[in-house]
């Protein structure tokens, strides 16, 4: 399956390829990081940091181990987890990101469904939410998901399927 628009190796001298990767991933990457951190300011910092790290390490990128997109998401995930660790140590409290996406919808039914999904996502375990985000937002294949999460492809698929089931369940319950 091809899910990456910019699966070009950002090798040494491939600034153009890296720029293409940046253009295609920046928005999704921010969405994923912000959903993980639930803090817009920190998500901006971590997103920028992930791109910087990726650029510095682009010579280490190996296309055989996955697409550039999954490699970038793995870097962002590590940076986000480091940020969470730092917060746990320093006891920083953050508020939820203000979500006005649903309020802007004209279709009441659609808006209501999205609110349900948002609330359902909030009730998931962090690991379940993470796998949903990597799949739905990051658009990673199951193999790439496995490499990012550090598990087998089958385990990644199982975790994803369970998380989807839990999300549906949470949406139904909240409904």
């Amino acid at each position, binding site marked *: 399956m091809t899910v990456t628009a910019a699966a070009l190796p950002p090798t040494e001298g491939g600034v153009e390829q890296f720029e293409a990767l940046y253009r295609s991933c920046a928005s999704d990457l921010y969405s994923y990081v912000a959903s993980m951190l639930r803090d*817009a300011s920190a998500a901006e910092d971590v997103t920028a940091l992930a791109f910087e790290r990726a650029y510095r390490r682009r010579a280490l990128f190996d296309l055989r181990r996955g697409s550039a997109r999954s490699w970038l998401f793995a870097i962002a995930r590590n940076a986000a987890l480091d940020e969470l660790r730092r917060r746990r140590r320093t006891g920083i409290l953050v508020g939820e990101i203000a979500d006005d*996406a*649903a309020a802007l919808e004209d279709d009441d039914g659609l808006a209501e469904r999205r609110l349900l*999904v948002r609330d359902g996502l909030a009730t998931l*375990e962090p690991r379940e939410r*993470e796998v949903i985000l990597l799949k739905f937002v990051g658009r990673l294949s*199951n193999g790439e998901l496995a490499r990012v999460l550090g598990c087998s492809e089958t385990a990644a698929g199982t975790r994803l399927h369970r998380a989807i089931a839990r999300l549906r369940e949470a949406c139904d319950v909240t409904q």
Partner: protein
Amino acid sequence: MSRNNLTPEAAAELAALDAILAGGPVADDHLELAALIDSVRSVSPQRSDEFAARLDERFERGRAARSRRASLRAPRAAWAGGSLVALVVAVAVVVGSGALNGSKPVRSDTLGHGRSGGPAIALPGPAGGVALPRSSAGATSSANASGPTGATATTSPAFTLAPSKVVERNTNPSHRLVARGAALTLASPPAQMQSVANEVVSDTERFDGIVESSSVAVHGLSSYASFSLSVPSAHLPSLISSLSSLAGVRALDQSSSDITDSYDQARTQLADEKAQRAALIKALAAAGSLSAEQAIQQKINRLDSKIAAATQRAGALLVRGDNAKVSVVIVASAAAAASGSGGPVNRALNDALKVLDVALAVALVALAIVLPIALVTLACWWAASTLRRRSRERVLEVAAAARP
């Protein structure tokens, strides 16, 4: 069912999920899934336009800075690479020349001057040798008289010491007078017999020695050369080492003998005879008759002969201790010719192999140092990486546990 096994329905749903994410057509069975994906993507936080602009600006700024750094890095990398290559070459030259020179004194023609592949032989220093003034000055010119081809030249020993110089030596008991000698047989290709013979003379002079006699005959495979050399004992090991590198070494014999006692006896006898002579001189002055004077004079004359002989003997012993005798024989060898021990190309090849050999040894030593350090570093990196990964994963578990 195993914990990680997917049911066919689950696998089908995951396949449909991938298809939807790839932008493919959505089957009726999976419309709900497509709507779920759309909802999740819609409720995910979106970056603001302001942040997008800032990130774009930061990206452009970083790219410009990096291209500036890259333009500076290229010449710097070239300098670093050039310096590294120069350093490696310098180390190789130093190490290589050190290995090739061995214990020989530095000379300008080490790598290309008539050296064959014969093994260099290092001899121990002259322990117990006597520090004495050398008396070989002025004798070297007569020793270098070998004819060019088939000619035979012989020179006589050049050790003639004045009696006054003979009797004094270091009286420290720890200094022993040791007579040293060596016999070296070399095998050289016939075509190089003359050049090797010339090298023998040249090396002997370089180590302050003299050629007492020499004989060089060049007649094909029956070519033959012999040398009788005398060299200061202190330089004997260096000379043997140098000579043994001129051609293949067939044989090397060394000898040493302590002549301190003989020398001391000769000195004692000389002192006694001088004392007797002094007493006879006094008696001569007090002699009352002509016949008595004649008898004393005869005794003095006999004593003078004895004193001269004793002086000669002590001087010879001193010279033996001071200078080592080296006998060098060079025989023609077809095998040496066939093995290519001669010829500038082969010698250069041998030298190159030696340099490579030394370089390999240096590389092995470096590897022995670097490898353990690299392994320890790798282990530390692996441990730190594992700890960091676990610590990151624990964050999610802690977050789950902290949920209300």
